[in-house]
């Protein structure tokens, strides 16, 4: 008798606890689950995107199509299984209209089948490996696709008359993408290329740089995770490679706006290709940068931030069209959407749901005492070349 009562009491307590956490669900709210790396080595990615997403809501108001917008930020802890579980919980428990964020490719890939299964739109705001959008018809990407940058950059470099390039990339998905897309385009343009891969966790680049010094190419293309790039450049300069006539080039990750200013003079003159620079000259961008800096003192928006900002824009505009409805309707609404983002004109490819955008060739220069990637050439409306070929 006594036991039964105790057990009953316990069950009641548990049930109550469960219902309380669910009761907060307001019917007329649109919830967006934002899953980002908030801790660990890629934490700065998460910070940038979260800050930009919040900025967007702040600017455009916390309601769309008559519904209140609620952003739920979660830390992905850098592991695929946790990311997937969090996404699943957001979908099943919080009944979010869309999931967004995704800092790293494997985490996005792990979640993709879920989006299909639950018919929940998934906006990728950072991860940049080509295949991601092919994994689910519910994925829309507002960041970039690596070959989108690498391939035109390879062509451009070849066009400048450069003949021999060495690439150094971190040994993981995006790195491989950069390596292959750049090399392919560069070779097609008549160039010669040698590829070197370095471990992702690599404290000292000197052995790899020494190989480069021995080979004496005309240019060295580098792709390492944002942040590590600075270290790389320091060692590049320290080794005197800058003076030996080897040009340092790379995708924009190398001269990430987030940390560019801290790098100092060593970064001056580095040529990169990327879809966004904080110094992009347009009224949209001026407003964006200003708003961002005001809301986050000491932080300069980078390409991650703009991915988050545009992702929110796609969602807002899509929701307006569907009158707050999610699911397939929302994906359809986002397909083909085009607008002028802080980075320039962009659109969502209706076929691949990947982003189409301008790619800029930039050079690091000092402007008003601060270091910026100054754009000097534009390659307009670039699609993901890999998908375009199919």
């Amino acid at each position: 008798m006594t036991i039964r009562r105790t057990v009953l009491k316990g069950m009641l307590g548990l049930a109550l606890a469960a219902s309380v956490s669910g009761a907060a669900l307001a019917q007329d709210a649109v919830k967006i689950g934002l899953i980002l790396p908030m801790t660990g080595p890629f934490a700065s990615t998460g910070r940038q995107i979260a800050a930009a997403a919040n900025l967007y809501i702040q600017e455009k108001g916390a309601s769309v199509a008559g519904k209140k917008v609620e952003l739920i930020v979660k830390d992905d802890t850098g592991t695929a299984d946790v990311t997937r579980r969090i996404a699943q919980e957001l979908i099943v428990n919080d009944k979010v209209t869309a999931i967004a964020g995704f800092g790293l490719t494997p985490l996005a890939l792990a979640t993709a089948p879920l989006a299909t299964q639950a018919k929940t739109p998934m906006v990728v705001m950072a991860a940049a490996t080509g295949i991601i959008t092919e994994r689910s018809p519910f994925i829309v990407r507002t960041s970039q696709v690596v070959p989108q940058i690498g391939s035109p950059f390879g062509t451009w470099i070849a066009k400048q008359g450069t003949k021999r390039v060495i690439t150094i990339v971190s040994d993981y998905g995006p790195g491989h993408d950069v390596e292959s897309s750049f090399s392919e385009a560069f070779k097609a343009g008549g160039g010669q290329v040698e590829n070197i891969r370095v471990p992702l966790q690599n404290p000292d680049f000197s052995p790899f740089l020494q190989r480069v010094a021995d080979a004496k190419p005309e240019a060295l293309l580098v792709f390492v995770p944002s942040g590590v790039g600075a270290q790389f450049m320091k060692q590049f300069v320290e080794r005197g490679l800058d003076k030996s006539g080897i040009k340092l080039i790379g995708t924009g990750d190398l001269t990430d706006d987030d940390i560019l200013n801290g790098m100092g003079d060593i970064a001056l003159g580095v040529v990169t290709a990327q879809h966004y620079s904080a110094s992009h000259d347009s009224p949209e961008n001026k407003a964006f940068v200003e708003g961002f800096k005001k809301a986050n003192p000491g932080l300069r928006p980078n390409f991650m931030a703009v991915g988050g900002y545009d992702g929110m824009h796609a969602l807002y505009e899509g929701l307006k069209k569907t009158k707050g409805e999610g699911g397939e309707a929302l994906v359809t609404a986002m397909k083909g959407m085009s607008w002028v983002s802080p980075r320039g004109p962009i659109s969502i490819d209706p076929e691949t749901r990947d982003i189409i955008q301008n790619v800029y060739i930039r050079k690091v220069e000092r402007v008003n005492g601060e270091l910026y990637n100054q754009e000097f050439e534009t390659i307009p409306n670039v699609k993901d070349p890999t998908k375009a070929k199919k």
Partner: protein
Amino acid sequence: MLTILFDGVAYGMILFVLACGLSVTMGLMNFINLAHGAFAMFGGYVTVLAMQRLGLPFLMALPAAFFAAALAGLVLERLVYRPMYAKSHLDQVMFSIGLVFMAIAGADYLMGSSQQFVQLPAWLSGRFDLAGIGVGRYRLFIILLCGALAFAMQWGFTRTRFGSRLRAAVDDARVARGLGIPVNRLFALTFAFGSGLAGLGGALGIELMGLDPTFPLKFMIYFLIVVTVGGTSTISGPFFAAMLLGVADVAGKYLVPQLGAFIIYALMVILLITRPHGLFARGRA
């Protein structure tokens, strides 16, 4: 090739300065302090702040990093480490991992999650050629400074009274106490000094290894490799272990880049299987 050797030595030197405090405290109190890297990170951030906020020159920031980390070591040893000596190794591991977590989140909160940089003075940047070997100025500076430190420590450890008392305490703490050697005080000082060195290593390493809040976790494995391979209770053991790892890592990556990260781990496993008590452990009866 000689340039590679040179780079490897510089890298090894930094590893040594970072890890040698850990090795001595481990030998002395049989305490596994995985939070050693947190002191290194602390030293690094002190340097960054001192240079960026206070505008101290690099050479002045280095001692600041050393003393700040040493002071932190001294205080923490007194407050939280003391009760841990008597506990099991597992408890110590857990406790110090807890400290690492706190340090990482704390640094993130205070300093942000992005990479930090320092501007080296001009006379330390760039490189020059010496008999065909490319010599990086900063790496040369590291080798000279850390080499001098290692030499001074070896001298202090083997030639001074403080050193002989310390060695006596490591050999047999019970008898050392019974003969009037204040083992606890020695240990507190050594702990503080080791933490200070870690702080200095962290400061010197910003340029080579970078500095962000995940530093203590990222390099924990390297410290541990140096200590386990080098053995505890000497200065020369960890020194040679750090050199070996530094050179092997750099040369390995240069010669066979495909194998990159394997080399250091494989080397450790092989060394530990063949010499379970460390590379330079004295044979035991």
